[in-house]
């Protein structure tokens, strides 16, 4: 038995949270708590990097698998990673320390409790991406609601109660049907172990209904049009660190779920429902881009842009082409970095001016140049400029889409243009133009920690933009295998 590296990834944040729980809460800037949390998450990040290094890229089978009896003769606690999930784990462990550094200014009261919530959230997120048993997956997937509800509700903005409730109830409503589906799968096949289910396959006559049940949960979480309305509310009201976690990682759970479960377990149904996904994705891309164009609140704009970007992701996944799925995964990773960075940049000016309205700003370039440069980089990455990671993802997705369905691909390409429009317009209104607002003259440029975290995010965005090979090499074999399995399943039916 090897060292249970995945379980320690899941457990370490909880241990850190427990430790914090027994320290005394101080008013104001609680440095001890911050250092403890930061230390825990950085160690976790290093472990995940070690995981990536020792990960064998030449096989698609699950690695670092742990399999323990959990409920006698029924459910096993089974975790493991393949090329697809490992990237999400690294994304989670990478984003969390950044969130923790960023809480400096945005969280004023009860810092210790906030950090505990973030740490617990991290462990649930890692759990979601490691789980190789449907019940274990569901457990982590749902458990994440509790800390996120508290993060939005306690530390959020003015309409935080409404947003927290909306977030919680929407996602819960979506998920309960998935629970019914999971239990049904158990009774149909006799197991909830994903690896075994890949081998056994699920009877065709059940697939459509089960697929829809899983879809109801993932669609809310992604979020897809028309059930996306919780996202702008949750994003706007959540504190910056909460928005970052939400955009960077929580949304990816659903995309990951689509790849791992919807495609893997229900190949026939995925084929059947591809038109549905295409339609919803295209609507999401065009419709929410247009909405984003009209927003006056910066956070809301980025929130709608997230919906549009996730539309690309779902589109790419269901092209069922190698490029499409690889593109989706890279797009998710890239969007995780970019949206996190954008929320942090908005957070920077919000902490200084206490306004998220675009009209408050204008002409920032002349007072805070460093900020403006980094903001530009992230805005360009978000619209998918070549040389940033956003480009690789969108390009691959569109390539996959053109192979599969020309019309859909054309409409989606229009979405790319719209994406450029709202992002550049936002940047123009905030950064360029005349400096009208007198208060802005006294605004300070990035301080050290802000500069540090934004550079940390900028580095991988640029690096993977020019050299995406590490990402593609990691996922390639797993995706190829997934497609082969899918095609052989289709052929045998």
């Amino acid at each position, binding site marked *: 038995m090897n060292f249970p590296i995945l379980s320690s990834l899941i457990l370490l944040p909880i241990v850190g949270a427990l430790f914090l729980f027994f320290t005394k809460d101080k008013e104001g800037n609680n440095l001890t708590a911050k250092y403890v949390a930061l230390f825990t998450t950085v160690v976790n990040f290093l472990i995940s990097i070690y995981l990536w290094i020792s990960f064998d890229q030449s096989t698609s089978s699950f690695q670092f698998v742990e399999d323990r009896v959990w409920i*006698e003769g029924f459910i096993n606690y089974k975790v493991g990673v393949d090329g697809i999930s490992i990237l999400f784990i690294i994304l989670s462990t990478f984003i969390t320390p950044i969130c923790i550094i960023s809480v400096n200014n945005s969280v004023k009261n009860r810092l210790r409790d906030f950090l505990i919530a973030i740490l617990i959230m991290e462990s649930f997120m890692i759990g979601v991406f490691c789980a190789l048993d449907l019940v274990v997956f569901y457990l982590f997937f749902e458990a994440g609601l509790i800390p996120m509800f508290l993060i939005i509700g306690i530390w959020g903005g003015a309409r935080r109660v409404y947003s927290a409730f909306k977030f919680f109830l929407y996602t*819960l*409503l979506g998920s309960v049907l998935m629970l*019914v589906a999971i239990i049904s799968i158990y*009774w149909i096949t006799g197991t909830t172990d994903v690896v075994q289910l890949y081998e056994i396959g699920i009877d065709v006559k059940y697939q459509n209904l089960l697929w829809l049940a899983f879809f109801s949960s993932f669609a809310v979480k992604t979020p897809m049009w028309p059930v996306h309305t919780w996202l702008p509310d949750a994003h706007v009201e959540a504190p910056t660190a909460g928005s970052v976690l939400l955009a960077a990682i929580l949304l990816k759970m659903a995309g990951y779920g689509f790849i791992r479960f919807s495609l893997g377990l229900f190949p026939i149904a995925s084929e059947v429902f591809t038109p549905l996904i295409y339609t919803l994705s295209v609507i999401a891309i065009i419709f929410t881009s247009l909405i984003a164009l009209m927003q006056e609140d910066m956070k809301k704009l980025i929130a709608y842009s997230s919906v549009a970007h996730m539309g690309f992701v779902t589109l790419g996944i269901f092209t069922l082409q190698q490029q499409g799925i690889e593109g989706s995964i890279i797009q998710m990773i890239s969007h995780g970095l970019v949206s996190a960075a954008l929320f942090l940049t908005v957070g920077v000016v919000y902490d200084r001016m206490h306004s998220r309205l675009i009209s408050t700003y204008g002409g920032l370039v002349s007072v805070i140049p460093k900020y403006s440069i980094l903001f530009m980089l992230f805005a360009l990455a978000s619209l998918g400029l070549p040389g940033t990671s956003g480009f690789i993802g969108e390009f691959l997705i569109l390539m996959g889409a053109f192979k599969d369905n020309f019309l859909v691909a054309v409409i989606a390409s229009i979405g790319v243009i719209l994406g450029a429009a709202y992002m550049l317009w936002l940047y123009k209104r905030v950064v360029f133009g005349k400096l009208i607002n007198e208060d802005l003259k006294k605004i300070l440029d990035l301080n050290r920690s802000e500069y540090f975290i934004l550079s940390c995010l900028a580095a991988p965005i640029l690096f993977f933009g020019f050299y995406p090979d590490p990402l593609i090499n990691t996922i390639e074999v797993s995706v190829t295998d997934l497609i082969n399995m899918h095609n052989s399943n289709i052929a045998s039916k």
Partner: protein
Amino acid sequence: MENLNLVLPEIFISLSIMFLLVLGVFKKDSSKITFILSLFTILITAIITINETFSVSRETLFNESVVIDSLSSLMKIITLVGGFLVLVISSSYLKTFKIYNIEYPILILSSILGMMVMISSNDLIVFYMGLELQSLALYVLATYNRDQLKSSEAGLKYFVLSALSSGLLLYGCSLVYGFSGSTNFDIISNQLNSNEYFLTFGIVFILVGLAFKISAVPFHMWAPDVYEGSPTTVTLFFTMVPKIAALTVFIRFLYVPFLNLIDQWQMIIVFLSIASMIFGAVAAIGQTNIKRLIAYSSISHIGYTLAGLATASNEGIQSSIIYISIYVVMNLALFCCLLMLRRKDQYYEDISDLSGLSKNHPILSLCLLVILFSLAGIPPLAGFFAKFYVFIAVLEQSMYFLAIVGLLSTVVAAFYYLRIIKIIYFDKEKDKYDTDHSLWLKFSLTVSTILILLYFIFPSQLIEVVSRINII
């Protein structure tokens, strides 16, 4: 000669009750000693139950009118533990209201005795006797704070409605006896077949009577008023212990005498279950009093328990028992929190009194957070597993409608639990509450919260204990 060791727990508890009564009459200021002795009585009874009956797979006594099997011994132990905990955390509450008298533990003991008789009954008459014994004690307990108008009102309401339901039950029993020619469950089971048209009336009457006792919709009307009016510790008793006993009787009736009539009763149970789940969830939204809210939430929890029973399978019965056991723990924890809302000898029971609790009482709020999320059925807390097992059993029988309705009503229910959490965590704080709680209260709260929180680490143990129960 019968093996009297099997009913030793009942014999012991009856003798103790008599002794305690005599002690109370002859000794002045004996309330404290009565309390302590009652606790020991329950403890010893539980030990005897474990020793004498736990390994028995199935034995009958007294012309097969009493049955000792794994179901009865497990449920007796849960009942005893529940009774013990209620008694243990009652004393400070009773002292505050100056009703710390010898009658309280004795009434609790006698109702426990009644429940134990009910749980073991294998005969209509024995069952009815146990039922009345526990009910009479409960009527008095409901009015126990007799100087308060609400308590007396609660007792009266409970008495009238419960007597009515007992009447219905008895009528049902007499019909069943008329058709089968016997009061013994096993004989009834062999005699009955679904051809008898009027027999359905008997079954319906019995089920209605039992539904009253567990307050399933549409026979729930008494619960909110009685729960609100009774002293809080008695409410705690009401929400836990009689439900365990009534549920056991429910299981017995459905799966022993009426086993061959599944077609007749399955629809009724499914209806009771769905109605309770939905009504309990919806009606709780508008409540302002915590005890009334708990009443509605207990109605919806009973709905889930009944969903397990509706499956007509061993797994279903086992899942119901797991559900009720976990529910008992969650409920106990919730009431411990309620009993801690005390400021200068006054207890607060409005939801608005919880406002901003997390600022002044972080640990208590954290416990409430765990308990409420668990009641809402959010993983990885114990409440989720309770629902999970029930729905596994329900879906095994392909009862998709029941499962989907049940799970959707958990979303509605989540709303009102979230509302309380919102009030505790998001709202403005009020004055501090007293913190000098009795050690037992703190202990019970801590242990039950930890059980709820960490149940997911060792879920197999409870299943193992319960899986010995094979009725069908």
